[in-house]
């Protein structure tokens, strides 16, 4: 009984954090992009800094008309946002937030993370096919090809860390960094770069945002979604932004390790630094073309991550 109550509380905490994270990140992205572009972002809603802009956005989205496009595959279309959002929630299960704070210390934590995030791909395909719109379908195909291609470098880049620590548990990897007093970003710099680039591609963010911003031509896989259904995709995207950054922090930047402050504060600080870097990159770089994106994934990131794994393994064998 206690366990059930505790589990429900943990789940509620995750959902609450998810919502709060999306709330803050939407505002933060608009403010940061504004200041990069020498303008103010949201200004009027909620005081001089516009902090409640996200609330205004949510209210507006809730008030929109809720419709199902004609001819759409009703179940596929309706469930697609959920299928995109559920993995975003599930991965919080294995993130080590503090020395003893982790929702479920799975000893295959990394595999769980990687496999669950792959479900987003399914959600995108469901959205694209279920919309009964040829533009959505082609957009979803492109997004699907992109996500699929970048899964492999993403996972391979983490294998170097796994080989070095010998454990797939995320809490164990952080512990290894703590005991060695060395964050993995230094010896595994190649892995970190590949991981970060692949994660930007997984998140459909510029410079890899063909699925969304090719709006001049094809409106993307969520063109037929409006109101709260679209908001679910957006919340999933911002949540994935946070969790992917959190994974990068866990694997490469020492997780919750840090002096004086409690672990979870360091975890949050480091994760949000990586999130900021993601936002910064988005507003600096132009977009790559689809074939250049494929080239980058298969012909550059994939070999580099393989080389990284082999190099790590050789080094460890020799030592």
């Amino acid at each position: 009984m206690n366990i059930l109550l505790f589990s429900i509380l943990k789940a509620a905490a995750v959902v609450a954090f998810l919502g709060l994270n999306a709330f803050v990140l939407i505002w933060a992205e608009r403010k940061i992009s504004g200041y990069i572009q020498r303008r103010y972002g949201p200004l009027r809603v909620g005081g001089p800094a516009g902090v409640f802009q996200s609330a205004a956005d949510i209210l507006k989205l809730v008030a929109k008309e809720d419709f199902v496009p004609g001819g759409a595959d009703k179940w596929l279309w309706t469930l697609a946002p959920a299928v995109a959002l559920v993995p975003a929630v599930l991965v919080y299960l294995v993130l080590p937030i503090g020395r003893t704070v982790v929702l479920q210390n799975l000893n295959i934590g990394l595999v769980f993370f990687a496999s669950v995030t792959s479900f987003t791909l399914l959600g995108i395909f469901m959205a694209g096919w279920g919309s009964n719109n040829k533009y959505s379908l082609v957009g979803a195909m492109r997004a699907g090809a992109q996500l699929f291609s970048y899964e492999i470098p993403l996972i391979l880049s983490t294998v170097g860390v796994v080989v070095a620590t010998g454990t797939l548990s995320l809490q164990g990897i952080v512990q290894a960094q703590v005991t060695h007093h060395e964050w993995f970003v230094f010896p595994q710099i190649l892995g970190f770069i590949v991981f970060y680039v692949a994660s930007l591609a997984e998140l459909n963010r510029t410079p890899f945002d063909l699925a969304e911003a090719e709006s001049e031509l094809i409106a993307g896989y969520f063109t037929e979604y409006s109101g709260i259904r679209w908001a679910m995709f957006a919340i999933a995207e911002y949540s994935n932004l946070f969790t992917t950054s959190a994974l990068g922090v866990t694997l490469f930047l020492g997780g919750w390790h840090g002096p004086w402050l409690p672990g979870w504060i360091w975890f949050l600080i480091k994760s949000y630094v990586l999130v900021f870097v993601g936002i910064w990159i988005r507003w600096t770089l132009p977009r790559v073309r689809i074939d250049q994106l494929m080239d980058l994934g298969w012909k550059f990131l994939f070999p580099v991550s393989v080389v990284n794994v082999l190099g790590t393994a050789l080094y460890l064998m020799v030592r």
Partner: protein
Amino acid sequence: MATDEGLRGGSGTTLAEPAAATPRGAAVAGGADAAPAEPGAEHRLMTINMGPQHPSTHGVLRLIVTLDGEVVVKVVPDIGFLHRNFEKIVEGWSFPGIVPFSDRNDYLGAITNEVAVCLAVEKMAEIEVPVRATHLRVLFSELQRIISHVLFYGTFGLDLGAFTPFMYAFREREMGYTLMEKATGARMLYAYNRLGGLRNDVPDSWFRELEKFLDYLERQAWPEYMALLIENQIYRERTIGVGRLTPEQAVAWGASGPMLRATGVAWDLRRAAPYLSYDQFEFDVPTGKNGDTYDSAMVRMLEIKESIRIIRQVIRILPDGPVLGRVRPNVRPRPGEYYSRVESPRGEVGVHLICDGGAKPYRLKWRAPSFCHLQLVPLMAEGSKVADLIAAVGSTDVIMGEVDR
């Protein structure tokens, strides 16, 4: 026909076209074609519409694009959404009134439009223009060129997915607008030229502000533009080799301005057919090598520097004097026709004026460079990918106002 057999043999749905593009349809019909791709190819093609309203910056341009997967098979620009009857309306107006109206054609290169009209009418009515006015016209044309090319930089970046250079470009354009407002009274559509010169003179303090703006542009803004976008590797991969034009194609289709110079043809009206007082100033004409979008953008960026150079020379040699010559209130050019051409930021703007001795023009034909450049888009983009099509259209720097007039 193979296509009908393919349709009859296929699933017959009209929803998802790939489902109907079945090679097995051709096989059912008896294998009319040896290569299954051929009868299926027509079904695989998808015609989509980049409608007149779209979030990119070209204006009201409609492109009817036929795609085979990711590759553009055919693109047809559809224009006319901004047609405002310029040429017919001015047949009912007297000549001084045409000048402010011509601003609206190429609204990003307004001064050059006015200069084109003024040159035509002044030639036919034999109106004398004072020297100071001629030099100031050169100065304002070059300032207009700077402002227009800075905007090109911003919108080209936006077409490629870089959102920030657009904002930086507008920061400098705001400074340019403020300068123009101090001199002419208006920010974008100036109505500054008059038959016989300019509407009003500019005070000396304005030249000091202009020099400050030019210094800032040359030393801070231009290197920043280059470093942020033009030297970015992603940008280079997106634009080098994309939208290639040969010099023969460009000349045959009537390209002019930076589009023509990007292919390597060193044709600049300020050099080849000097008007106003351009023959008194020293400037280089930047040309490209490959005729691709990278060269097109680079030519424009280098032209910004050349324009700064020209403006500095004008300021140095500008004499005192009136800016408006003596003009009769009722301008009646002698009958005949005349074609005046100026080098606008987009290319050659031509005004073909036919007068019959009355106070209104008999016919005024406006030659818009963007009209010819838009016809080059199929040549540049067919066979390449969708993203290249967008880059190609962006690099032509079309202004729909002058395409449709």
